[in-house]
């Protein structure tokens, strides 16, 4: 999801509007004095995404609606919400109205679906089922001027059980903590997992079959396309040529050269395969000698035991471990030889296929050379026809191979998608069946978050905050042994800023995550020196430009030097000097 533009529409000819404000592709900075209307602009952006905002009376009186234009993949979506008491939000796509919503719940469901976020029913604080609202996610990427810097998650309403943890999980694609009706959801998920298991097996089989169909050596799509292009040009040249004989000869020369390259590739591959086969033999021999040593060991043990002077008790246990492991080791080593033989047999088959391909290529080369020598002797026309027909059949074969290769590639992507889907389903299933047990995804996220937070605290020069960050099971960061509530002033602001930047960074690591926006409403500048804030913003900028993400922030003292190509600065357009405002009467 990307923000494109924002506009506040005036209420009547004497109302206040903002004009069209475009967001920068990396950074959007609202730089103005206090009380010039930065916050209403930022809030109306989120207002269009369903957030509950209480505007000041003059804004409600003078402004009619806010229009936010966003891009989701290739879709251009316009969200227009009227400023007033009632929830009234209209969604347009390419200037066609696609839906109108009169409550947050319906809009949330629509919007989460639009940005491809799958939701599950959660539990409210009173135990009833609810779907998560998009507006509950907003505090994770938007820091409100007043409360945003005091807590990790400053929600306006908290009605979901463990709302903070649930929202973070939803944001980064982790399974929910408190699923509603775990039993039924579990049964459904199990069905889906079973279905996916079956699909994965057949998809893998299909992939194997398609791969077997490819002719060795396997070339990349790119190389094949280039070869095809060359053959086509060659055919064109042959068609347009005047000097029939020399063209025919050079055409045949090309083909011979190409077949030779192919022959060399095949030879290389077969050498590699042979070395694999022979090293399997080597390993087999090693295992054999290990078996032999094992036997010797056992004999040696018996020799010791039979020597009664050494130990009079028959079961003294001196070599007990050795005796126990003997039989087992023998079994595994033998079993392993069996496996090795299977894999070697497969390799030998592949080597045989390569041999056939090699001899076929060799025959091609010989026939081309023969044709070439005939062409050299005779007057052109026969050879010319021959050259054209060989080139055409070459093109045909290349196209066939390319088609097969493309099929394999498509199937590979398909297979990878299925695997990813199963992984997601299984972690959801685990959350439904064993909610109290550890989940690999959650722990990975916790480790990653603590790592990223440490880095961002360093960027913000937070000296008084421990860099031993631990994320607890509710996903709340602990700085050393301290919770956020203990911190005051600058340390608190820095910790909150570091947390949000870390979360932002983690979202961006997933290429498909729609959460690629971070909005900071006037970071408390009295708390953090400009130079530290500057380091923070610079780092965010580089993160945003690398990951197709946007950072929006407002400021009254620190001013970021924008790059006109990728950033935008919004300055108040109405009025002059210190009285300049972001909202005013248009055309005045």
């Amino acid at each position, binding site marked *: 999801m990307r923000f494109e533009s924002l506009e506040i529409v005036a209420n009547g000819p004497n109302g206040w509007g903002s004009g069209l404000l475009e967001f920068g592709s990396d950074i959007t900075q609202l730089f103005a004095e206090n009380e010039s209307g930065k916050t209403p602009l930022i809030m109306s952006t989120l207002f269009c995404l369903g957030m509950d905002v209480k505007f000041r009376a003059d804004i409600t009186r003078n402004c009619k609606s806010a229009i936010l234009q966003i891009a989701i993949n290739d879709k251009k979506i316009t969200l227009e919400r009227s400023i007033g008491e009632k929830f009234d939000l209209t969604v347009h796509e390419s200037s066609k109205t696609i839906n109108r919503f009169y409550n947050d719940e319906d809009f949330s469901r629509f919007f989460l679906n639009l940005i491809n976020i799958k939701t599950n029913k959660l539990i409210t604080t009173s135990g009833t089922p609810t779907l998560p609202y998009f507006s509950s996610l907003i505090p994770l990427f938007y820091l409100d001027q007043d409360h945003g810097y005091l807590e990790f998650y400053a929600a306006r309403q908290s009605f979901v059980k463990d709302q903070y943890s649930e929202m973070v999980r939803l944001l980064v694609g982790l399974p929910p903590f408190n699923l509603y009706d775990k039993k039924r959801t579990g049964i459904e998920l199990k069905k889906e*997992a*079973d279905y996916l*298991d*079956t699909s*994965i*097996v*057949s998809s*893998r089989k299909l992939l194997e079959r398609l791969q077997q169909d490819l002719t060795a050596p396997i070339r990349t799509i790119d190389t094949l396309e280039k070869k095809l292009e060359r053959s086509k040009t060659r055919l064109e040249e042959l068609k347009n040529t005047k000097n029939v004989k020399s063209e025919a000869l050079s055409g045949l020369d090309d083909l011979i050269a190409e077949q030779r390259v192919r022959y060399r590739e095949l030879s290389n591959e077969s050498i590699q395969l042979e*070395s*694999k086969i*022979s*090293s*399997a033999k*080597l*390993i087999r021999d*090693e*295992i054999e000698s*290990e078996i032999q040593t094992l036997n010797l060991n056992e004999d040696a043990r018996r020799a010791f035991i039979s020597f009664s002077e050494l130990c009079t008790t028959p079961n003294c246990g001196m070599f*007990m*471990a050795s005796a*126990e*492991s003997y039989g*087992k*080791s023998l*079994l*595994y*080593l033998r*079993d*392993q030889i069996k*496996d*090795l033989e299977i*894999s070697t047999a497969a390799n030998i088959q592949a080597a045989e296929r390569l041999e056939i391909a090699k001899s076929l290529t060799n025959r091609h080369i010989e026939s081309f050379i023969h044709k070439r020598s005939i062409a050299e002797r005779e007057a052109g026309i026969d050879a010319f026809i021959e050259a054209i027909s060989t080139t055409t059949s070459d093109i045909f074969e290349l196209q066939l191979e390319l088609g097969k290769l493309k099929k394999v590639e498509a199937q590979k992507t398909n297979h990878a998608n299925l695997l990813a889907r*199963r*992984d997601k389903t*299984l972690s959801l299933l685990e959350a439904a069946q064993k909610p109290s047990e*550890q*989940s*690999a995804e959650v*722990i*990975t996220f*916790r*480790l990653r978050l603590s790592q990223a937070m440490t880095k961002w605290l360093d960027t913000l020069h937070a000296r008084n905050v421990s860099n031993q960050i631990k994320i607890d099971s509710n996903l709340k960061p602990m700085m050393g042994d301290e919770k956020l509530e203990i911190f005051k002033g600058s340390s608190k602001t820095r910790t909150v800023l570091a947390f949000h930047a870390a979360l932002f960074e983690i979202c961006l690591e997933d290429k498909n995550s729609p959460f690629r926006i971070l909005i900071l409403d006037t970071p408390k500048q009295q708390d953090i020196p400009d130079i530290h804030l500057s380091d923070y913003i610079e780092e965010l900028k580089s993160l945003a430009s690398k990951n197709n993400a946007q950072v929006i922030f407002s400021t009254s003292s620190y001013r970021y030097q924008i790059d006109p190509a990728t950033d935008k600065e919004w300055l108040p357009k109405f009025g002059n000097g210190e009285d300049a405002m972001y909202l005013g009467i248009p055309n005045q």
Partner: protein
Amino acid sequence: MKLVEAIEIASTEAPLIITRSAPRSRRDALQNESLFHMPLIALSILSLAKGRSKPKADEIGKLIGQCFEHSLATFSGSSQELGWSANLRIRTVKALTFLESTNLITINKNTSRLEATSTGKKIVDGAIESEGELCVFLLTIQREYRNICKERAVEEKL
């Protein structure tokens, strides 16, 4: 045989003999020592044996190999073919012997499947509670093992 003849024969056959007996410089396949350290293998075996479907004793080497291959990102789809690795299997046997002799695992005589004892389970639980990379690895291995079992069952049905 005259000396001259002998030299002649020797000189024609020499290259053949040399090439045959020359040591191969490439023993590339299946040489990945650093991967196979016993403690990790032992813990992995324990974590498979702890789950509901117990692994068969005579498959454990291959299973551990496959689980490693799928769980360590860079090995999935690589040519290392850990599932076939001989070294890994030898180590797995050693690890299993250790687990058995320390009474962390028992082999069910009737089914020949591995079962973690209560002490064995405690060790895995301890490792999983540590919430570090190891915990993630063990959980991934458990899921991989689940996938292998399920897929095998589907294949058998087909």
